[in-house]
């Protein structure tokens, strides 16, 4: 058993390569000058700069949140490069740098729109917005999406081409001063994805953002804004990787989702940032604010996340259920190994009548890692007939890791029902014995058992993602059994 665990934790991070590409940076550090410089580089209008400066002034008065069950290395916010981009001749060249193309090919992200073969309909096409360090490199399938009225582009383009939409919705779900990292992001955010689905339109393909950190000494601060207008629906996926480095790199993103009446949004994440090495050196600090609002009646928002990477994860995708009879789900698998730390969970804030939510969280900790679920379920005074069910399971592999559950249930309505349950267990010798005795290698047996444990969540992912997530789980576990 010990040997198996050792094997499982020794697997390498295969996305850890660095791409050699000419890049330009802004100087290190953070002050109003830097923010003006970033804004100027992006050619932003005055209101955007004012937004950034306002956020920066708020941020300066805020302090780091300390309540997480995390040991964060000290972050020197003046020692970070806040903007890095591959050099290019014009704003959005027709030709993508072959080095970048190769990078994304290597990561399995198609940047070319595959040509349709005669008579063969491509199955499961995905439109991708690829973000490399601080800029969006390309967005595919824009034309075919535009035919349906769907806007899917980089955030910078949205600021230029659809300022009305951006001004209306930006910071409407995550206010500028929401928390320390959200304020920092609002001040310095570089790029990200913008998506608008017009009334009654069902998005014909999955939309996807892919984030890649490449440059050393930089942080990535992207911002995603998704708006689903009345009766529309969309499935959105997000993926990310970074090179292996001995230093910690900061990733502080903000995702905002607005779901109007009867609209349906499904947001899936497979988070695979570099987790640091087996001794806990380096890795990404993933400090992210994600929140959606079910604004209209009958709207629906579903979060699915698979968290395998990052040295530190601090992330609580949340839903505000404002519209009557709106509903939301949160499905999560968080896997930590070696010295990784994760403090993740969700907030379900019920405000409208007959709102429903469901939380299924599966934590897996191995090695010396710490894995916490932290959640809030709140029934407001107006949430008549509100209903929530939460289930948080933890799986411990090895005796030096920790698994924790910190839920808060707040009820202010005598016609609402909240249920929460949590369990903690380990992979039993019996289960392993059963598998090995049938000729299944111990590593495979562990992967099999973990896969079964996480199945309820993995089955919610879009197909391409589910396969990747399954692989990631078994890879992340390498060397954990013993």
């Amino acid at each position, binding site marked *: 058993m010990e040997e198996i665990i050792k094997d499982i934790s020794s697997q390498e991070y295969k996305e850890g390569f660095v791409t050699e590409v000419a890049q330009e940076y802004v100087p290190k550090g953070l002050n109003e000058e830097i923010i003006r410089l970033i804004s100027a580089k992006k050619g932003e209008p005055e209101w955007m700069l004012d937004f950034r400066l306002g956020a920066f002034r708020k941020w300066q008065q805020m302090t780091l949140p300390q309540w997480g069950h995390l040991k964060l290395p000290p972050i020197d916010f003046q020692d970070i490069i806040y903007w890095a981009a591959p050099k290019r001749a014009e704003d959005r060249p027709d030709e993508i740098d072959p080095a970048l193309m190769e990078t994304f090919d290597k990561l399995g992200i198609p940047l070319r729109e595959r040509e349709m073969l005669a008579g063969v309909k491509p199955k499961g096409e995905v439109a991708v917005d690829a973000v490399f360090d601080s800029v969006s490199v390309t967005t595919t399938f824009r034309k075919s999406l535009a035919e349906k009225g769907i806007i899917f582009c980089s955030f910078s383009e949205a600021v230029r081409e659809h300022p009305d939409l951006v001004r209306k919705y930006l910071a409407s779900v995550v206010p500028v001063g929401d928390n320390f990292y959200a304020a920092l992001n609002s001040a310095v955010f570089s790029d990200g994805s913008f998506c608008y689905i017009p009334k009654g339109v069902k998005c014909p393909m999955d939309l996807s953002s892919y984030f890649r950190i490449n440059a050393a000494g930089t942080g990535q601060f992207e911002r995603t804004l998704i708006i689903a207008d009345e009766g529309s629906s969309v499935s959105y996926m997000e993926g990310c990787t970074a090179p292996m480095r001995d230093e910690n790199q900061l990733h502080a993103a903000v995702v905002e989702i607005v779901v109007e009446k009867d609209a349906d949004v499904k947001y899936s994440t497979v988070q695979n940032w570099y987790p640091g090495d087996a001794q806990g050196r380096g890795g990404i600090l993933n400090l992210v604010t994600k929140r959606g609002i079910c604004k209209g009646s009958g709207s629906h928002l579903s979060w699915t996340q698979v968290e395998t990477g990052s040295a530190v994860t601090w992330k609580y995708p949340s839903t505000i259920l404002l519209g009557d009879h709106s509903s939301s789900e949160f499905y999560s698998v968080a896997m930590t190994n070696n010295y990784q730390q994760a403090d993740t969970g969700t907030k379900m804030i019920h405000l409208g009548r007959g709102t429903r939510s469901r939380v299924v969280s599966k934590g897996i900790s191995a090695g010396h890692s710490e894995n916490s679920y932290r959640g809030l379920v709140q029934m407001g005074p107006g949430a008549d007939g509100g209903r929530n069910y939460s289930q948080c399971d933890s799986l411990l592999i090895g005796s030096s890791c920790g698994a924790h559950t910190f839920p808060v*249930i707040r009820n202010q309505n005598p016609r609402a029902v909240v249920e929460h349950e949590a369990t903690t267990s380990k992979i039993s010798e019996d289960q392993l014995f059963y598998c090995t005795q049938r000729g299944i290698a111990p590593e495979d047996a562990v992967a099999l058992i973990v896969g079964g444990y996480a199945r309820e969540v993995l089955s919610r992912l879009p197909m391409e993602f589910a396969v990747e997530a399954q692989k990631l789980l078994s890879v992340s576990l390498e060397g954990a059994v013993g």
Partner: protein
Amino acid sequence: MDSRVYILGRDSAPQYLRLEAGEELAMTLVVPPGTDVQYSLEVDLCGPGAGLDLAGLYLCPGSERVELRVLVRHSAGGCNSRQLFKGIVGGTARALFDGLIYVAPDAQKTQAYQENHTLLLSETARTESRPQLEIYADDVQCSHGATTGYLNPEELFYMRSRGIPEAEARRLQMQAFLAPVIRRLSDAAAEEIYASLP
């Protein structure tokens, strides 16, 4: 097994208990109506085979402020703990239950369970429940459950359709809800609780 009952606000209840190897303790906490209380209890299970059976109920039909904080610390392996807390909150009362089960590294073969259920009776009452687990050993069985809800209208209808007056039916529902804890009290104490149901 040692078995103790404390009425908070009347009896002086312990704030820290230490259970050595093989020691077993059953303890019941009662917060009667009209009691404002901030109570915290820490129980340390520090020898193998120690066992804790803890239960509590809080009745807050008026304008009470009740805060119960319980920390059960499994410092040694092979111990088991069980907690059951039930509350009924109405009027403009505020009730908080904060319970943490802590399992130290190497406290293997721990079994720990915790349950917290509350009923909300009015628009202006507030409840908060924080059942927490902090676990540093792998060969353990730990679980917790928490629910908040209200008196089931279908049960009420069933009883009323059989000629039981509404007030009586509501009292029966509350009695049934509290029964697992009330069972642990003396007859006199149980009578007092029954009589004070809103």
